[in-house]
Each structure stands twice: as structure tokens, then as C-alpha cells.
């Protein structure tokens, strides 16, 4: 059985059908991609699976556990982490605090520990701090640990989001356009980091991308979404040469 399985998911915004009969199966350790023109419904699919929206129809299961109806933080604690297309960092918090915050569901000291500063709390906070430092090392920004995020360069902010998502210890990582707005150099570094994260931590990755190069190089299987429907699914080669995909992106050649 697949790690994450989405069956026949459909979603309406009022009368508008945003996603229609979407299916997905991700095996452990796999990297999959989702491409499609603007407004195709890619981020909506992310939001549906991660619980921000509730699908009108369909099933979503993670390791056999039903996800539909759970609140986003519950789904995240089950091991489904994500980053956002438009950075959603907490503007007054430091980089280290960001990563530690994502350990929230792992905290066992409870409110008593929080109020009275029990030894248990100090032990857990120290442990989480160590993990956070390791993750910052992994994504290559240990030097920014004590900076407030708003003072960081854009590429570093993206990496904070990634490190924060990794702190959940996800089984699947959802990346919503991880290279959006990056210059070629930052893009290269980001791809390197994603590869390295995948190699070292071995979780499955599901990513949305606009840049063909990134998707083609990283992903094993790619889905193409147009107007909420999957029009093609397959390896990078197949997708690149699929006439329906070319048509969706470049438009139909008009023969006169």
C-alpha cells in the first residue's frame, strides 16, 4: 500500500470546480512533481491534502489513516510537512525559534513544565535546540540561527521554511514552488539541498514547480494538471514529449 493515497478527490469553491477526480499515490522515499499552468489548482491540491480546505468529495489516507476532516496541525503531526509558495515566516521570531516551533507536537512537558520550568522542560528544549541546529546545518544556514527572519536574504528565508518543515520529521514533504523568485545561483543551491535532504533523511517529496528544469531533474514521476484535472502522468521524458502538455503550456499550433 502506498504511503500517501488520494482517491478521486474533487473540490468546489462555490459553483467553481477547482479540482476534479484527482488521484495520487506516493510511495515511501519517492520524489514526485506536479506541474501545470497558473490557476490550474496545484496549490489547492496541496491545501486539500494538508487540511487547510476540506475536499468536497474523495479520500486522503496517510499510511492507511484517513486525513479528511482532521485539522491541519493534526495532519502535520502525522508526518506531512509543507512549505508555502509565498513565504509564510513569523516575522518577529528568530531562525532558531522557527525550527524549534515546528517541534511543537513532539513536546511532552505540557503546560506545567512551561509554567514552572521543570527539568523535563529544560531537557526537551535543549534536545529540540540541538535538532534545530543540526537542521540549520543541513540546509546550510547555521550562521543565521539567532537572526530575526525578516533581516535575511530571500534565498535564506526559503531555507528557513525548509528547515522548519523538516523539524516535523515528516514522512512526506510538500514543497510549493521551492525555487520561486530565485536567481540561477540560488536555484542551483536549492536543488542541491533538496537532493541532499532526500538522500540523508529519505522521506518522500511532492513538489510543485514552474521551472521545468527543476522538475525534470529531481522528479521520478510527474503529473500535469490543467483546470483541476490531471491530463498526463509519467516520467520526465514522457511528460516532455506529451503533446497535451505542450499544448497546455504553449498553446495549440494554428494551421492555416
Amino acid at each position, binding site marked *: 500500500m502506498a504511503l500517501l493515497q488520494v482517491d478521486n478527490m474533487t473540490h468546489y469553491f462555490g459553483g467553481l470546480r477547482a479540482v476534479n477526480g484527482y488521484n495520487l499515490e506516493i510511495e515511501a522515499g519517492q520524489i514526485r512533481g506536479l506541474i501545470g499552468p497558473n490557476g490550474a489548482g496545484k496549490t489547492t491540491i496541496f491545501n486539500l491534502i494538508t487540511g*487547510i480546505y476540506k475536499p468536497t468529495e474523495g479520500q486522503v489516507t496517510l499510511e492507511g489513516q484517513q486525513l479528511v476532516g482532521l485539522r491541519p*496541525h493534526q495532519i502535520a503531526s502525522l508526518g506531512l510537512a509543507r512549505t508555502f509558495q509565498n513565504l509564510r515566516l*513569523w516575522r518577529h521570531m528568530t531562525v532558531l525559534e522557527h525550527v524549534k516551533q515546528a517541534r511543537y*507536537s513532539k513536546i511532552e512537558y*505540557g503546560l506545567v513544565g512551561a509554567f514552572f520550568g521543570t527539568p523535563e522542560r529544560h531537557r526537551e528544549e535543549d534536545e529540540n535546540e540541538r535538532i534545530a541546529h543540526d537542521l540549520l546545518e543541513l540546509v546550510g544556514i547555521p550562521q543565521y540561527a539567532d537572526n530575526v527572519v525578516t533581516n535575511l536574504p530571500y534565498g535564506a528565508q526559503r531555507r528557513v521554511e525548509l528547515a522548519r518543515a523538516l523539524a*516535523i520529521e515528516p514522512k512526506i514533504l510538500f514543497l510549493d514552488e521551492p525555487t520561486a523568485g530565485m536567481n540561477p545561483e540560488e536555484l542551483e543551491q536549492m536543488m542541491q539541498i533538496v537532493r541532499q535532504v532526500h538522500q540523508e533523511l529519505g522521506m518522500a517529496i511532492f513538489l510543485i514547480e514552474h521551472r521545468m528544469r527543476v522538475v525534470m531533474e529531481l522528479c521520478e514521476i510527474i503529473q500535469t494538471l490543467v483546470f483541476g484535472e490531471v491530463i498526463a502522468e509519467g516520467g520526465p521524458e514522457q511528460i516532455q514529449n506529451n503533446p497535451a502538455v505542450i499544448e497546455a503550456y504553449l498553446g495549440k499550433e494554428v494551421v492555416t
Partner: protein
Amino acid sequence: MAVTSETISTNRERLGSLKARISEPFVLVPILGWFLGALVAVLLEQLVGLPLSRALGMPRIPALFGVVIALQKPALFPSAILYDLLIYVLPIVLVAKLSASPANWVAARLFNFRPWVSVLLHISLLYIILHIWADISDYRLLVVRLIMVAILWTLSLNIINGYMGEFSCSHPGFIALGAYGASVFTVGLFVNDNILGAALLPESLARFMFPIGLILGGVIASLGAILVAIPSFNTRGDYLAIISLAFMFMVKSLIENLEVVGGPRGLGGQPDLATLPTVFIWTMLGIWIMNNFVRSTLGKALNAVRDGETAADAMTVNTRRTKFTAFLFGAFWAGLAGGLFAHVIRYVNPSTFGIQMLAENLAMVYFGGLNSVQGAIVGAVSINLLGEALRPLEIYKWLVIPLLLIVVMITRPTGLISFTEFDFTTIIKPKQKPEGEV
């Protein structure tokens, strides 16, 4: 635009260098040294305060640094200044400067022994200073206790408005619930009262049962806060502000119509339980627990909810639990402080807990600084001291203080000391020379 911002920045630089020049000789003075200086100052006042004030032409020892006297009789202004210089400024500065190196040595020994022992000693010293200072007059005693109560409710409001970033207006309601809860407990049990009947227990027990009464008040306020916490799951910003404002009025009219607790006439005759040590201990306990909370990951979740709820949710933070905790926790301390307040004043009246109290509370929070324990303390102390010191201006007091608030908001939009972390152990650390010459 460019010109003004430039002038402001050069002004700021000049101010900064002035500040540096004044503070330069004192960078090596540890907090212990300042406490010693303050101790000498308050002892000096006990010994020679009265003769000195007489000699300077003042009828008695100026209660609040002579501001009141100077405002009532402007002719005495130089005397007041001279008194402050001789009794406070000179002794504190001299002792702090001269004791710097022995104080550093003691502070280092204490700190290396056990940091918490050092913290307790510092707090005890602070208490002794306050006690001696407040011993001069009943008025000072009252002001000190009211300021400490205000610190508690400013900090608890900061939890909701600063750390979690909701604009809650329900704080006077929480304070009222706590004040009445604790008052009904103590008056009902230990006092022969017209409204609540004869005492059920001997008054000698009151001292020991008082903490129970205070906690009861806090719990009642927490229960009330559920009414605001639940709407906060789906509502933010202006709408929640209106809901919380409605809550405040609900509590006020509830008490006004509740004849059992005296209705609009209020409830008086609380036993004299909120003594200086009691209020001091509860204030320190409150600061300690609230500071512990906001520094833990569970407490930082408040900041995450404030700065981006969707992201917080996606990062496993249980946002509903976080909001619920923040409201109930903040309300608990507001209620507890309300209980203390009722026993300091020894009379409560529903009209106390209205819009005026809300305005003062909000002013203390936003003046002192959002998301900061130091800010809450600074805000509570300064607004309260100002309020008391400017009393001779009568109604014009409420022109001066808001004006000051506006100026602060223009220059520092988030308050005097905002977005900081409070760590008492680093404050009491011995001061060392800048690295390289240790």
C-alpha cells in the same frame, strides 16, 4: 520628508552619544551595586529625610520624588530637585560606582555558587529596599502595592495583546471577576458583613486562606475568559475586539445587578490581607511563571499564531489550544491581580472596572512595549507613577499622559521596550570589561 528624517536621525545619534557618555563610567556596575546604592539611599532618607526636607522648606518628606509638592507650590521646585539629588541620585551613583568591584566579586561568587540562590538574594534585596522606601508614608505603601498589582495585569494583558497579538478589551472584566471572587471568599468567610452575613471562620485563619481566595478569583476569571476564547477560534482583529469589549460590559452589568454582592453600591470591608510582602511575593511569582511560559516553545506558539496562523497550523501548532491557553492564562493572572487589588483598596465597586480602567491598562501595555516582560514592568511603573505624581494637575493629568503616549507611539510604534526576552539570570550576572582586557 528627507530633511525631517535626517534631522531625526542626527538627533538620535546625538542622543545616543550623550547616553553613551553618561553611562560609560557605569558599564561595570552590576545590578547588585545599584541595589546597594538604592539601599543606602532609602536608609539615608529614613535617617535624615525629615530634617532635610524641613531645612529645604518642605512640610514633610516628599512622597513621590517631590513632583507633587513642586506642582502644588512651584516655589518649592528647586528644593524638591535638591532633595532628590541629595537623597537619591548622589548616594545611588556614588555607592554604585564605589562598590562596583566588590559588588562584582560578590555577584560572581553568588552566581557561580547557584544562579537561583543569587536570584533569590537579589529579589530579597529589592524587597528590603521597597519596604524601607514605603515605610516613610502610608501613601507610598499604597502606591507601591498598586503599582505591583498593575504590573501583574499589564503583563497578563501583554500575553493576549502583545504575545498573541489579539486586541482584547476584556481585561477589566477579568479583573472584576477576580476581585469579586476573592472578595466574596474573604468577606463571606471571615467578616461580619451586612450583605454576606456573619463570619463563618475565625479571622485568624484569613491570612492562611487568602491564597486560596486569590486563586479562586483567578479561576473564576479564567472561566469567564472561555466566553472570549471560543469566538477567537474563528474571529480575529476588530471583530474579536468588539466581542471582548462586549464581555467587559457584560461583567460590569452582571455585577451591578447582582444584589448578593452589593450591586452598584459595591462591596467593602475586605480584611487587610494584601500587605506589602504578600503583594510582592505574588507579583514575583506571576512574573516568574508568565516569563517561563512565554519563553517555552508552547508559549512561543502564541507568537507563531500572531505572525501567521496558517503557517503555525501547518507546523503542528495546535492553534485552538494555544488561543485557549493564552486567554485563560492571561485571565487567571488578571483575576488574581484583581483579588489583590480589591484587598489593597479594601473596597470594590462595579464602576471601577469600566472603560477608564481598560484605557489605563492598554496604555500601560502599549507604552511599555509589546511582547516584552520588561516592557510591561516599565509601562506599569511609569504610567502609574506619572498618574500619581501628576495628581495635582487634576483633570489636566489626562491631557499630559495621553500626549506622552502619542509621542512614544510616534517615535517607538511598538512601545519603549518591545520584542525582547527577559532573563533575570543574565541581568544579575557580574559585569565584565569588554572582551580582550578581562
